[in-house]
């Protein structure tokens, strides 16, 4: 019955709690056929669509593997992470699961991360497997620098987990999630540069598009995989680090803003 010290092994304790919550969430995902289908098939289907589209080929510079992986990462963050997590968090909130968890030892962020764990695992597995398949099937040149691509996936995941947490604020039921997720699913995707070059947009709109959360993800993927910069130049490994700073900064700003907003507005219980 001795009270445990708060510092020693605190990180390990946190990870243990996150894994416990994540395992339960994974069981629930496995038992939810619709959610599983959306999470597993949407990225694969979209990847196929993107690689077979000549427009996106023009944007990507005809590197089919890079093009496929970039599209896959964007869609995995939206479908597997964002949409999946909005429905999961709303379902748990309405079932009073979040309230219950808050009465336990897990911290607020551990609860959200634990709930997000299976969605993130599915997304990352898709990106990894998709990348291996894409480069094996039609890879031409090896990636210029994997670090910007990794930063895109990791920071992008953090941003879309936080956006999912924020979307639950206006989502009163799981069914409503189909409507409330539309803005985040459509606007950043349409204006991320995956379907047409952002230079085509009028100046102010282009600036806005570059500030949206998915655009820096796409920019960093391209930079890492093909060395293509935001303004269309091509750089080698050495030059790629400096070019990554801008998009990374935009993502970090989204994480900071999203974290602040989620802390402020996230609801742990259903509104009555």
């Amino acid at each position: 019955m001795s009270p445990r010290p708060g510092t020693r092994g605190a990180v390990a304790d946190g990870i243990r709690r996150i894994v416990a919550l994540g395992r339960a969430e994974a069981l629930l995902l496995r038992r939810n056929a619709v959610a599983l289908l959306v999470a597993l098939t949407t990225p694969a289907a979209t990847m196929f669509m993107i690689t077979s589209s000549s427009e996106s080929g023009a944007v990507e510079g005809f590197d089919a593997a890079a093009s496929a992986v970039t599209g896959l990462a964007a869609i995995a963050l939206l479908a597997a992470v964002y949409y999946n997590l909005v429905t999961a968090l709303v379902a748990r909130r309405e079932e009073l699961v979040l309230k219950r968890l808050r009465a336990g030892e897990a911290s607020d962020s551990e609860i959200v991360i634990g709930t997000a764990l299976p969605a993130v695992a599915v997304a990352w597995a898709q990106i990894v497997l998709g990348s291996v398949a894409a480069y094996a099937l039609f890879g031409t040149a090896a990636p210029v620098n994997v670090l910007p691509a990794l930063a895109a996936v990791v920071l992008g995941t953090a941003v879309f987990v936080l956006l999912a947490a924020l979307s639950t604020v206006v989502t009163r039921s799981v069914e409503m999630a189909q409507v409330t997720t539309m803005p985040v699913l459509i606007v950043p995707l349409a204006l991320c540069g995956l379907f047409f070059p952002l230079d085509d947009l009028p100046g102010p709109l282009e600036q806005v598009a570059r500030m949206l959360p998915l655009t820096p993800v796409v920019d960093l993927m391209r930079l890492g995989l093909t060395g293509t910069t935001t303004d269309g130049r091509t750089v080698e490994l050495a030059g790629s680090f400096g070019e990554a700073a801008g998009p990374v900064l935009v993502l970090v700003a989204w994480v900071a803003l999203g974290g602040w907003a989620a802390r402020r507005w996230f609801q742990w219980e259903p509104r009555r």
Partner: protein
Amino acid sequence: MDETRVDQAVVDEAGVITVDNLWRRYGGSGAGGFDAVRGAGFSVRRGELFALLGTNGAGKTSTLEVLEGLASPTRGRVRVLGHDPRRARRLVRPRIGIMLQGGGFPSGLTVAETLRTWAGTLSSPRPVTEALDLVGLRGRAGVYLRQLSGGELRRLDLAAAILGRPEVLFLDEPTTGLDPESRRATWRLVRGLLESGTTVLLTTHYLEEAETLADRLAIMHRGRIVRSGTPAEVAASQPSRISFALPADLREPVPDLPGTLAGAARPAANGGTVLTTSDLQQTLSALLEWANRRGVRLHHLNARSASLEEAFLAVAEEADRSGGGVSSDGVSDDTVSGDAAMGVAA
């Protein structure tokens, strides 16, 4: 580290749980706001069971949520094991167990999966099978929660609350929805926990539950503690009652009897008479003596000592009459209606 250390002896002296002038307001300070808890104060000693009784909306759960660290007080101070339960959540949570009013486990998991998950979030959990045995759900380990009865879900809630071997256990209406047999099984479990030194704070609607389990209790009404003490003390705050019906042809009133309270006799609903007294034996003897002497037959004669139930009902009645303005400093004497008629009902 030393700042967060709280001397055990000091805690035991002051109480494992202390609540001091607690206020909790919903909906802001404007006119739309509502004070759910209005200056509640009590303390719970180590190893005892303290019951919070009250009507719906009395403020029991609102009080409990502050103690559990789930909500902040609007005013006042609470301490659990010597700490602020919200600020020192990391220190307090591993040592307490919380049973909320219900819900909160995903319906798509089995009983065993649910407890295994919960155990994974705890510092020093019991084995899951031990917890299942304690609440009698061993045979339902593989069943999905959506297939459990309300009573079984309640017992699962209890299993989760005791899974971390808590020093202090909060039970919010633990037996609501249970059949009588399960209720008694829960009582046995709670008694066992008390014997092993656990401190329990419980809310309940069932007066029998409080009477059976509680070392001390408090009755809450409209956000205030209006009575507190041992179950016997709180019951004794109410007068005893004698009720009977007089023959219809009797033209003579019952005389003033010793021990009856001022304005004590009043007509009962069935046309009989109710006497309230602070000394049941004395008043009853005098009544029977008068009846024998006069040859009066008392129908439906019934004499009852004060009970917790009467104390509870009187609190609600009296507070409603006076607009909730019951003094918070415990027992008051004039709990009997002042407009009662003297003598015998016609």
